[in-house]
């Protein structure tokens, strides 16, 4: 099976989707001729023509607003916002329009769009190239929110998202574009070619939305993670010698609650990790759900390891990023509680 980076896998997903369905169109800033600032759309314009893959003016509101109109016509737009940090000008279109069109029109009109955006930190991106705004979308009825953590899932989830009848926010952890990252910034990064999840089938396949993956089975404690934090959690558990069960959520909305509940009922302990800021972050929803559904099985308070409640800093990158040390401490505390 071929090896792909996450970038290549994402590009392959769009290639496959465009090849199968003439209604799939791909556009955004620098997405066309240049192939995207992260190379995710490289070659698509040459292959499918400039009315299927094209550059847009620098207007996130315009990109998403026109995508919604195209979807109402019957296309399946896969739009890119260059960084998740720049999605806010389109927030009204996403929340007030894309998410609600099916509901408010009783299905007269629908909005099968995908909004791809690179997300997350760990790259010295500072305040506006590092944010993780997923909680701003998981709070919105009508959206689906996906965060892949490896090339295979990225391709399968993206094809599933493009084929999905509802609007999907597709957050791509840019720290994982070229290889897995466990937070050990002092070590050299290994490429996806050395990782089993870098094996990605060439043709069409999907990874279903709304289904989590158990990355490591364990008995001592459940870690709920997604994106880059899946690898941080794995490394933290190994370093601390804790037999953790690690769940990669993959889809945040709708959530695979069954997998979570089964795991926490088994382990009795739960640690939630994400890069996004703590207060009202997605971890709060996870903690509340675990508390509600697993209360009598819990042997310790649910711990949350997250970004601090500050804007994402530049120089203090590794003091901010919830790396293996901070996650490891939370694992020990939860085991000792």
């Amino acid at each position: 099976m071929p090896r792909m980076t996450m970038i290549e896998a994402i590009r392959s997903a769009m290639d496959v989707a465009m090849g199968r369905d003439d209604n799939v169109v791909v556009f955004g800033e620098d997405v066309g001729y240049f192939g995207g600032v992260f190379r995710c759309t490289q070659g698509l314009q040459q292959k499918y023509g400039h009315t299927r893959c094209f550059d847009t003016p620098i207007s996130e509101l315009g990109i998403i607003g026109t995508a919604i109109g195209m979807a109402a016509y019957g296309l399946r737009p896969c739009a890119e916002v260059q960084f998740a940090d720049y999605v806010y000008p389109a927030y009204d279109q996403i929340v007030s329009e894309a998410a609600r069109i099916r509901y408010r029109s009783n299905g007269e009109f629908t909005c099968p769009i995908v909004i791809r955006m690179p997300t997350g930190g760990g790259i010295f991106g500072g305040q506006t190239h590092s944010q993780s705004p997923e909680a701003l979308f998981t709070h919105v009825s009508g959206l689906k929110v996906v965060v892949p953590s490896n090339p295979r899932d990225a391709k399968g989830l993206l094809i599933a998202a493009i084929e999905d009848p509802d609007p999907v926010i597709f957050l791509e952890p840019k720290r994982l574009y070229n290889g897995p990252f466990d937070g050990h910034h002092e070590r050299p990064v290994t490429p996806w070619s050395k990782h089993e999840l870098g094996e990605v089938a060439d043709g069409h396949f999907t990874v279903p939305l709304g289904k989590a993956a158990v990355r490591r089975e364990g008995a001592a404690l459940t870690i709920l993670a997604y994106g880059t934090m899946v690898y941080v959690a794995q490394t933290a558990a190994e370093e601390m010698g804790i037999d953790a069960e690690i769940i990669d959520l993959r889809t945040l909305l709708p959530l695979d609650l069954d997998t979570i509940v089964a795991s926490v009922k088994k382990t009795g302990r739960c640690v939630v990790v994400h890069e996004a800021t703590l207060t009202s972050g997605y971890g709060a929803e996870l903690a509340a759900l675990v508390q509600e559904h697993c209360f009598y099985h819990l042997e310790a308070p649910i711990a949350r390891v997250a970004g601090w409640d500050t804007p994402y800093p530049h120089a203090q990158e590794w003091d901010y990023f919830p790396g293996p040390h901070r996650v490891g401490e939370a694992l020990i505390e939860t085991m000792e509680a």
Partner: protein
Amino acid sequence: MASKTRLSLHVPEPEVRPGDQPDFSDVVIPKAGSVDRPPVDVDPREIRDLAYSIIRVLNRQGEAVGPWAGTLTDEELAQGLRHMMLLRAFDARMQTAQRQGKTSFYMQHMGEEAVSCAFRKALEPGDMNFPTYRQAGLLIAGDYPMVDMMNQIYSNESDPLKGRQLPVLYASKEHGFFSVSGNLGTQFVQAVGWAMASAIKNDTKIAAGWIGDGSTAESDFHAALVFASTYRAPVVLNIVNNQWAISTFQGIARGGSGTFAARGLGFGLPTLRVDGNDYLAVHAVAKWAVERARRNLGPTLVEYVTYRVGAHSTSDDPSAYRPKEESEAWPLGDPVIRLKNHLIRRGLWTDERHKQAEAEILDSVISAQKEAEKHGTLHSGGRPSPRDMFEGVYETMPPHLRRQRQKAGV
């Protein structure tokens, strides 16, 4: 060293306020028939002056004059009059229904009937409007069933939108009427996207976007013009300038100079300004812009100059911010009366027939209302099921919504 001046902030104010004498002396009204009609493939640079004029067909004597006249048959004109009368009668009944507590809210079109009614007649089946909440004439002139409009307004058991939407925020794909949103301006750029899609698929359908004068200040307006211009999308971008955005006069959105139409010039768009109370002029301009779009010549920006005679909504009292008699002083008059006078002048209509038509139309509205009320009103009779509240958020209901529906006991 240059001397320093103490700065002061300019906040535009309308010329008159409640208690003042209405004054539209600063509104320059060109003579009917005086504005040229360029070919639809005109280079936008050659018609920049049209952004500062007003295209008019009906003169004071009720005659249709000039190069924009003659786009409608006698029969179509009589039908247009009936559509406007129907919209007005519909508005009056629903306004009253709101006062009677049969619905929570209503918004009328008084004075603006020509804009949406005449525009609709320039479209073909399959074209798509992205309307605001004040273009129900698109539905009326497109023969959408009045009963269904009322069912929506009443949020009753037959409401096509299952009680989920505020009154007047209709949606009908079949009738080319995109789902109306409460969020202003959003649909303007969506219209451009729809038109781009039609062009991507090498289709022949076109889109029409709608926005009010106040909402042109929203970022969506700017984005729509950029994208329409960049991709030469087959879209007609309509600005309905009714002088008022709730209590705010149009100078707050427009600033101190130019016109709303002139905003299109910087984007290289062909831009027309039209008498919004002149059914014939609205239709002629719409036809021109639609033909331009359909011939793949690109988008057009149109400003309809009109006046919001009624209150902003049933929750608004205009006497708190503008003179009560202001609408009577409005120099472009009343669209219904102007078309009526034109038809009478041409011997196609009489005062008697007008009164008869008014009675017939009122009857049809009342019988539709009776039919709708059989299915319930907001607070009495049949209503949508609470189960409907959970449907349609997604195509397939996800587990968390199923759990919530169970919890709600529906």
